[in-house]
Structure formats: C-alpha cells, structure tokens
C-alpha cells in the first residue's frame, strides 16, 4: 500500500511539473517570449521588475498581451498577403486567427522614445526677494556662522613664517618681513601687514622669489562643536594698501604650491583643509575656501598658509579672515543677503533647479541646494556650490534621477549666502513630458498567418495553448528608509554615511492557467490540477 501512495503522489507531482514545463517551454517566438517564460517561472518563484508597474485594475486580464500562443509559431501578419492568397480557401480557424492579414500590408510600428529637455519657463515656485540678513544662521548648525564667536580679547593672533627663501638674480637683498599689526580691527579679525624690509628698497631686481611662506592662525574662543556634518565657507580678504612694484596685485599669490586653509581641532589635530580660490567682489580680492566639517568633531583653529612664488614685488597688504556665512560685510559696498526657499513640487520626468537670479552686481553665492525625494526625507540630494553668478538666468542644476518620487511630491529647498549686491530668487521646476519620436520596430516574425491553411476543417486543426490570466495585484510597500548613524558617529568619531534602503514593493497576484484546447475539447488546467491533486491526496492519505 505504501508503494501505491508514493506512486500516486509522484504521479501528481509529475503532472504538475509537466504542466508548468508545458507552459514555459512552448512560448511563441516573438517579443512575448520573455514575458511568458518569466511569468511561467513566476508561478513558483519570484519575478523582479526594474520599475514599478502601474496599479493593477480590478479586472482579470490575460497575462500575455499577444494572440493566443501557438506551439510552433505566431499570428503576426506577413508583409503583404499570405501565401496562397486568391488561390486557396482558408479554413475557419485560420480565417478567425489570421483574417486581419488579408488585403493588408504591414508598416513599421512606431514606438516612442525621447529624452526630456529642461525648459526654464516651467513651474516657478517659490519666489522671493529681499534682504533677510542673518536669518540664514538658523538654517545651519550651531553658531558657526555667527562671526561674534571669534571676537573678544580671547582671540589669539599669531603668525609664523619660514620665508627668506630667495634667489636674487640681480638684487642683493630680498629679505621680507611679516609683521602682525593689531589694528585697525574690523570684523573681529586681526590685520596682517606684509611689507618688504626697508633694506631691499622696494625695487624689483628681476630675481625670482619662490617658497615664501607665511602662516597665520585664527583661534576661536571656544571650540565649535559640529553636531551635524555641515559645510562652511571662510574667506581671507586681501587689501593691498601700497603697491609699489606689483604689476598685478592679485596674481600669483596663491598659485604656488601649498597655499591652503587648514582646519584644526582643539588638540591641533588635523580636521580638514581646502585650497583657496581667488575671486573679486566689488573690486576687492578674496581667497575663499569651502570645506566640509564632519559631525562629531570640533573646530578650534584655522590656519592660513600662504605660499607665493613669482617675481619679487614690493607692496603692503592687509588681511582679515571672514566667515562668509556669518553675515559679515563682504566688500566695502557689499550687502549680505540671505534667502532660503523651499517648496513642494511634483515631477514625473525630473527636477531641475534653475539659477539664482542676480539683479544687482555680480554676487558670489555659496550654499547648498537640496532636494528631498518625498515628505519622509528619503532620497536627499544636495549639491554645494560656490561660484560667481552670471548676470543671466542660465545655470541649471539637474537633480539626478532616483532622488525623488516619480509620482509623489518632492521638497526642494535652497540655502545660500551671498556676498555682494543681490536680490535673488530661485526657480525650481520640472521637466516637461518627452515628445515621442517614432522609430521603426524590427519586422515581427511571421508564423501561421504567413500561409493560408486550406481545407474544410472547422475546428481542431490548430491546438491552442491556454491563455493564463492574472488578477489584480495586492501590494505591500516596505520602506524606503533613511537610516542614519549619527549616534554611532558621535560616539565613535567615525563618519559613516547614512544608509538608504530604497524600499521594495511586495506584490501578490492570482494566476489561472486557463483552458487547454485539444481537438475542440477544452480542458481547464486549474480544474485538472485540482482534480489530480485531490485524487492523489485521497489515494495517499485515505486509501488505507
């Protein structure tokens, strides 16, 4: 009896296997093959799609959007009339399946594919202008942007220099001296005066000076504790007060090797550094640098290391360190404007952030553009920039795909600081729908419709495989989640980037295998499966 049970169970399992193999192995040789084999495999396994498919309707629909699958061919029409047209009388089944191929010439089917292009005149939201001096500090971390933190008698000003590297070609003395000077003090920072030693005479000798290094330190009263990774911008303003023989006041100064800003912690350990970039604002020269200070650290000292190489010149200059995020005056006529904009936009093809629109003199803008993918903060995209804006609305910052929900709402915000005269506004918008451009598709394979099947047979000449149909999907979305490691970073001092779990859409979908038409006899595979299974179960468990 036990052998009978095992035999019946094996028969049942073998039947199921045969049915599945029949479904998956006899797919028609056309575009639906992949879909079909995938779906057949999915009857007992998983299927992963690259993109979310639209929400299923509540109706049952065929699994394959193709004609009734055939074991050996397809129902695509040939180019021109089928073979035998006009000479052979088609039988009923051929005519039903392939009647549309008569008196018909196939032309290539257009398909749409296009790349979206940005349009600057898209949705403009939000807009704002005006001066909001100082209000940006609330958007940043801590009080770093407040320049007062560097004021007071506790600010130490020290200098060091290891210069005197001079190769005079003609002159006999090119000894430079760097002298600190306590005043006048503006913006809470000391001034440094660099001037040539009197013995040099201030005349260019034609020698080449290189490796002249000086170092200045700016020390905070109290270390600035960075609780959240943030980006800061500082600038060293250079005011040349006396130009004797410097042909170009602002050239070559920082072009030499090693000029940089170093950011140190309380124990003077290295924190970050940046290479300065020279810009001018309202006729004044600035060497500004943008660095990122990771969370969990503190900032105590900024050292400015200047290396100059070039033709020896004689001039005096004054320097002061400015915190460009603090609202300090930038330039003699500069106005610190701040503007923060945020708003929600919906996009299906991408988001762009258009330029800030300067209305006054050319400003320098530093800041961060951010796009939040949805209201949960998933998909944070941000771009930092520091540049001199042009006078036209030309800069477009594309938000990479994947950082916003294609169907949801995205939050766009911008934070920036401006040195200069500016009334700024930010434009955000979405890409328009792409314009389809028809492209010819390859000629489809021609199957049974290529030749008229003659005869008087009314049915049963062409056994048809069943058409599986699927029901509506029931999906469960898990995630996405944005998992941060702020606690671990703050405790350990590491800098582990947040991990973004992109989320998964778990779906369940009913599937019926359909009916198998064998010589006019329709067999329901579902009923057959159930009957065989029930029979096997009864034989296996109940026969004793």
């Amino acid at each position, binding site marked *: 009896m036990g052998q009978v049970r095992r035999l019946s169970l094996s028969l049942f399992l073998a039947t*199921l296997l045969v049915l599945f193999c029949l479904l998956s192995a006899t797919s028609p040789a056309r575009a639906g093959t992949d879909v079909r084999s995938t*779906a057949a495999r*999915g*009857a007992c396994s*998983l*299927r*992963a*799609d*690259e*993109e*979310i*498919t639209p929400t299923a309707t509540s109706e049952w629909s065929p699994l394959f959007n193709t004609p009734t699958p055939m074991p050996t061919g397809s129902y695509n029409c040939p180019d021109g009339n089928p073979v035998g047209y006009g000479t052979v009388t088609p039988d009923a089944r051929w005519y039903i399946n392939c009647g549309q191929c008569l008196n018909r010439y196939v032309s290539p089917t257009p398909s749409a594919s296009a790349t979206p292009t940005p349009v600057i005149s898209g949705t403009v939201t939000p807009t704002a202008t005006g001066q909001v001096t100082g209000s940006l500090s609330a958007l940043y971390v801590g009080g770093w942007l407040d320049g007062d933190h560097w004021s007071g008698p506790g600010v130490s000003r020290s200098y060091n220099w290891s210069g005197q590297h001079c190769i005079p070609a003609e002159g006999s003395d090119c000894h430079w001296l760097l002298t600190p000077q306590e005043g006048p003090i503006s913006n809470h920072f000391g001034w440094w005066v660099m001037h040539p030693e009197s013995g040099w005479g201030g005349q260019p000798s034609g020698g080449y000076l290189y490796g002249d290094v000086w170092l200045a330190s700016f020390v905070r009263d109290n270390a600035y504790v960075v609780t959240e990774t943030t980006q800061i911008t500082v600038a060293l303003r250079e005011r040349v007060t006396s130009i004797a023989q410097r042909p170009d006041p602002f050239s070559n100064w920082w072009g030499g090797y090693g000029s940089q800003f170093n950011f140190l912690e309380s124990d003077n350990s290295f924190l970050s550094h940046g290479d300065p970039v020279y810009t001018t604002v309202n006729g004044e020269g600035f060497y500004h640098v943008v660095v990122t200070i990771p969370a969990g650290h503190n900032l105590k000292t900024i050292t400015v290391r200047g290396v100059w190489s070039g033709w020896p010149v004689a001039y005096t200059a004054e320097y002061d360190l400015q915190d460009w995020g603090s609202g300090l005056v930038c330039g003699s006529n500069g106005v610190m404007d701040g503007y923060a904009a945020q708003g929600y936009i919906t996009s299906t093809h991408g988001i762009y952030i258009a330029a800030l629109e300067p209305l006054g003199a050319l400003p320098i803008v530093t800041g961060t553009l951010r796009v939040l993918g949805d209201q949960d903060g998933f998909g944070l995209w941000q771009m930092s920039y520091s540049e001199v804006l042009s006078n036209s609305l030309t800069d477009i910052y594309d938000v990479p795909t994947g950082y916003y929900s294609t169907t949801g709402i995205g939050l766009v915000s911008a934070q920036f600081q401006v040195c200069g005269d500016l009334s700024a506004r930010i434009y955000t918008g979405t890409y328009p729908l792409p314009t389809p451009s028809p492209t010819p598709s390859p000629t489809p394979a021609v199957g049974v419709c290529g030749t008229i099947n003659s005869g008087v047979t009314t049915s049963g000449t062409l056994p048809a495989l069943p058409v599986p149909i*699927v029901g509506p*999907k029931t*999906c469960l*979305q898990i*995630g*996405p989640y944005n998992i941060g490691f702020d606690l671990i970073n703050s405790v350990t001092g590491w800098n582990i980037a947040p991990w973004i779990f*992109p*989320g*998964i*859409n*778990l*779906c*369940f*979908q*009913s*599937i*019926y*295998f359909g009916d198998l038409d064998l010589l006019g006899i329709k067999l329901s595979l*579902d*009923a057959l*499966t*159930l009957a065989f*299974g*029930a029979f096997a*179960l009864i034989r296996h*468990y109940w026969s004793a």
Partner: protein
Amino acid sequence: MQEVTFYMNPAIGVLAGAIALILTIRALLKLKVW
C-alpha cells in the same frame, strides 16, 4: 524601487492548504492531543 511579484494559483493553494491541514491533523493525532 524594485517590485517583487508572487504569483499564486488558487488550485495549488487549495491543495497546499489541504496537505498542510492533513499533516497538521496527523501530527496532532500522533501527539495524542485529543
């Protein structure tokens, strides 16, 4: 975001449920729960 779809056939589901029910009853009987 990726999507994973499970296809489920009701007939196989009914059979799987029947087998699970039978095995459960047999196990309970062997354990002499009743």
